[in-house]
């Protein structure tokens, strides 16, 4: 699991309400993604390219249990790397198979627009533009297994514990 792409940077204490505000709650998943960072960085969601990498600040994803990680994934981001990540956001990142890596110092090692190379398995984060490299905290094996399975839902679906996903437009609302 390796990603190489342009980097977007956000500051410290980015909360789940900024990623998935209450105003987007009743919208479809497709509509929800245009609300990411609408309050703190209007117009940003439209600029994200598929595969881009997000570098967060301290306590990234603080706040509620809402599926904020799912919105970042649906927006097309490959992964998030931050010095340390809120525990509940981290759970949801695992749940929705959105790689979230903790990497002390990563916020200072990158400027927005730099190219990053993130190796999730080896837990290495390289700034290709600046030629520097940092060690991240490895994802514990059982959690990596959930990410590799595509997240919790595919895992439970496969064993028949939950019904397969219904994909009509009405059901996704």
């Amino acid at each position: 699991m390796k990603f190489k792409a342009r980097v977007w940077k956000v500051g410290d204490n980015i909360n789940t309400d900024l990623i998935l505000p209450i105003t987007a709650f009743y919208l479809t998943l497709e509509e929800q993604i245009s609300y990411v960072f609408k309050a703190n960085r209007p117009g940003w969601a439209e600029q994200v390219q598929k595969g881009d990498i997000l570098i967060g600040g301290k306590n990234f994803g603080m706040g509620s249990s809402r599926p904020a990680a799912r919105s970042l994934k649906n927006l097309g981001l490959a992964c998030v790397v931050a010095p340390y990540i809120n525990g509940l956001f981290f759970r949801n990142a695992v749940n929705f198979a959105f790689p979230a890596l903790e990497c002390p110092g990563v916020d200072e090692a990158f400027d927005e627009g730099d190219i990053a190379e993130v190796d999730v398995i080896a837990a290495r984060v390289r700034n290709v533009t600046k030629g520097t490299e940092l060690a991240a905290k490895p994802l514990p094996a059982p959690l990596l297994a959930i990410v590799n399975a595509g997240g919790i839902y595919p895992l439970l679906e496969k064993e028949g514990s939950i019904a397969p996903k219904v994909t009509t437009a009405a059901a996704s609302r």
Partner: protein
Amino acid sequence: MGMTIAEKILAAKSGRKAVAPGDVVTVQLDTIILFDNNFMPNNWREIQRVCDPERIVVVFDHRVPAPNQIAAGAHRTGREFVRRFGIKRFHDVGREQGISHQLVADYGYALPGSVLVCSDSHTCSGGVFNCLARGVGGPDIIYSAVKGETWFRCGETIRYELEGALPKAVTAKDAFLQIAGVHGDHATQNVEYGGSGVAGLSINARKTMTTMSAELSAEFATFECDDTLVQWVRSRNPRAFNPVKPDADAKYKAVRKVNLVALEPLVALPDSVVNNSQPVGALKGTRIDQAYIGSCANGTQDDLELAAAVVRGKRVASGVRLIVVPASQTVYRDAMKSGAIATLMEAGATIAPPTCGACGGGHMGVLAAEETCITSSTRNFKGRMGEPSSRVFMASPATVAASAIMGTIADPREFLQ
């Protein structure tokens, strides 16, 4: 080596001798709580089997009574789930309605030494009962309901030694705002509350501190067990339990003293609860449009009684809306019997039915652009209670009530002699 409360419960419930910071463990769950957001079409996946209906609780709290068709549909899905699996502990709209974390207290669902999960971030509230309670994600809760287990990462523990007693008109909310203001976030860490000052705090007051610990981003927040706690739980839940004490040689990342006597009413400025507290005096005179008393942190009977004592015989300032939301029907009934509800209504408060309501920006007091609110609820992120340009100050119910009367942020000590 010795273990903290969180480490001991994690060890006991994962079948290990010891658990230390950095470990990832799979834990048997005693209580699994689903709430209405789980049943929203965007989140719900039809569960085909559950581990044990006796371990599951279902609560409708974020949007009750249903404010729109989508919420109504989620409630219907939830009722079907309850019926299909014969879930007995079900809190629908009606007599046993309430915010899940308040119901945990009202019905003694969080037993000392047990593990409880719910996919709401303030689930750490249940830690007041010497229980390992944690908010998990929506998919986690479905997984938990199916398997009866989940994983936890063990973090380091910070211990707070509470000492002395709170001065008049100063509350556990202020004690919390002091901790959050000075020490900032506790992400990836556990918080453990203890010390000689605990005995003087009611369960409701202690619960404010564990509930608010979600704002510290703590993994788990726990209190030690004492007689007051044992009595509270025994009178509400007949099941047996085993309180857990930290080992004498438990290893903490830090032990910090909090001298309750020295505290004053504090207010958190808009947009963040951590690193953002000011003495009420510094904000005195700030105009408000709305005052909100409620939520899983401060919608208890203690809170309503305190607010009633502040507003007794007075009127809410003109142009200000005072919205009071008892956290559960039990609280509501008790506050009716005591007269607190009547006193609040005489002063001009609007009483909303038990719900999360405007705490989560859902309904019952959502803010318009540029409006200013002072709230006793849990969270004040930008746009939390409505429009992103609205401002949300956070304080104790006493400070909120005093501010409602003045029409500007006010010091409750001037109202409670």
